[in-house]
């Protein structure tokens, strides 16, 4: 039969007797947390950059559509058409 130690006794021998080991476990957990947070920040920065690029593209698209609309409204056919249908708008009440 081997001399099985209780967890408390083991900790006393391995950890309590050597504070450095306890500190190393805490260090291990802290490093993991830092790496995890750094990875998360890097990913979020990447996502933000992509979102900004997408926003820029969409804003350019909206501007182009606005310009198209303005050009269309300035056209003769639009003005003639609008003049033709204006009396009908009175019917809508």
């Amino acid at each position, binding site marked *: 039969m081997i001399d099985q130690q209780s967890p408390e006794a083991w900790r006393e021998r391995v950890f309590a007797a050597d504070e450095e*080991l306890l500190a*190393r*476990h805490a*260090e291990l*957990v802290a490093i993991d947390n830092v790496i995890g947070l750094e*990875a998360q920040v890097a990913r979020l920065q990447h996502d933000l950059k992509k979102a900004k690029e997408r926003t820029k593209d969409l804003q350019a698209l909206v501007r182009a559509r606005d310009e198209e609309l303005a050009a269309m409204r300035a056209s003769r056919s639009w003005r003639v058409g609008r003049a033709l249908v204006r009396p009908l708008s009175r019917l809508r009440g």
Partner: protein
Amino acid sequence: MTAAPLFSVVTPVYDPPPAVLVAAVESVLAQTFRDWELILVDDASTDPEVRRTLREQAARDPRVKLVERPTNGHIVAASNDGVAAAAGTFVAFLDHDDLLAPDALAVNARRIAEHDDVDYLYSDEDRIREDGRFADPFHKPDWSPERLRSQNYCNHFSVMRASLVREVGGFREGFEGAQDHDLVLRVTEQARRIVHIPQVLYHWRVLPGSVAGDGGAKPYALEAGRRAVQDHLARVGIAGTVELVGPGRYHTRRVLPPERRVSVVIPTRGSTSLLWGRRTTLVTRAVRSALATTRHANLEIVVVYDTDTPDAVLAELHEIAGERLVLVPYDEPFNYSHKVNLGVLASTGDRLLILNDDVEVRSDQWLEELIAPLEQPDVGMTGARLLYSSTAVQHVGLAFSHGRYVHPYKKSPADLQGGWGKTAVIDREVSGVTGACVGIRREVYFEVGGHTEQLREDYNDVDFSYKVATAGYRILFLAHCELFHFESQTREAIPNPDDTRFLRRRWGIPWRDRYTPVYPNLPRPEDRDIALTRPRPAKEGRS
């Protein structure tokens, strides 16, 4: 004076069927990129029809040059004559019976334009069957040096900076049949930047007796390939010997220095299971097999056991491992990562081997296989080939792809090789390895903060792999280190959604795996000859 072309396509020619030679030349003439030259090197073909065809082809376009050797010198001499005649900045190699995709040079030119320091580019390839159809696409991994030692996966389409090819001395006499593998090894050792283009740009023709049709068609090439890899080991300073393990497949058996202290860390609760009809204590079986199959003496077995583990199990462990046993009691709620971290903290080895208790080692010198590659400073972690008790494949490396973390070839028969690339049976880089059997250097373990204790059960190995890879280390799957993993084959583990969310929050959603490419939009193997453009049938029941 005209500027030098960007690409010199070198084609050694020796008695091919004239029709396929013409097709090869036409595939170059049809390139969408115009800045090239084609150098046809006739290695003293005996067929007058071939000689006449070559002269006709050379007359078709001023960019086609013909070099006629007076005597047959074999592939190495002919290829070197082609390189000597090349005026291009990059040389590319096209066999006399193969085809380039129309945009092969254009795509390469685009990638070269992105970086000034590109020295070597390779791309995906497929085969031309005897009926002329393209089939069996080989989707290659990104740069994978371990895989290149195991097989010449880069060829074809190889594009190399011409100055570097000349600097390394071109093709070497004495390596006929594996001269391309030898050259790729020597060029990549010196290359400043290596680029993989994940596109099929080369079509390899299957002819009776060709390497494309039968890997064993040129037996002399296999020994030349083995010597090429052995020479490479000497040049890059890897202590080991190269073995031929199959047609075009090599295994590097590395040397584990005897002074390396290895700590085998095994978390357990001392449970038993029914294995092949007999109730067995898992951890004692694992430790017994682990010790019986290694010759490495400088090791310790660190068992992290739940405090309800039966005394008899601990006694048996002591009997098996003797003075090499270190017992670490654990009395907290189950947390695999915490258990492993505690075991590592209690260990003294400069190399760690983390092992599940439900394994049994199958291969001899498994520990040496798994730990010796860690002598290379850029190798951070290694993993083994794991089989279910039924001998079906359980693990040949992890792939992070299309939002999932998968075990490629899981539940496939043990003799499955993994297609053209033999992905399931060769040593190679992978994105991750399962936590059931992991080799790692002690300093790397601490550098990446060990296993995250926020993942108690699932995916701690995926997170750990991400951390090791993000720290800049290579992760290797070692096909010749084989264990049984007595995980249930029929009960599918359902990961905790919180764990999946945790992983994605840290690392994002994976899409394309670098080392085990999966393309779900490609036809399944059984459908691969069906045209990709086949129209889909209209859905029924909708107006």
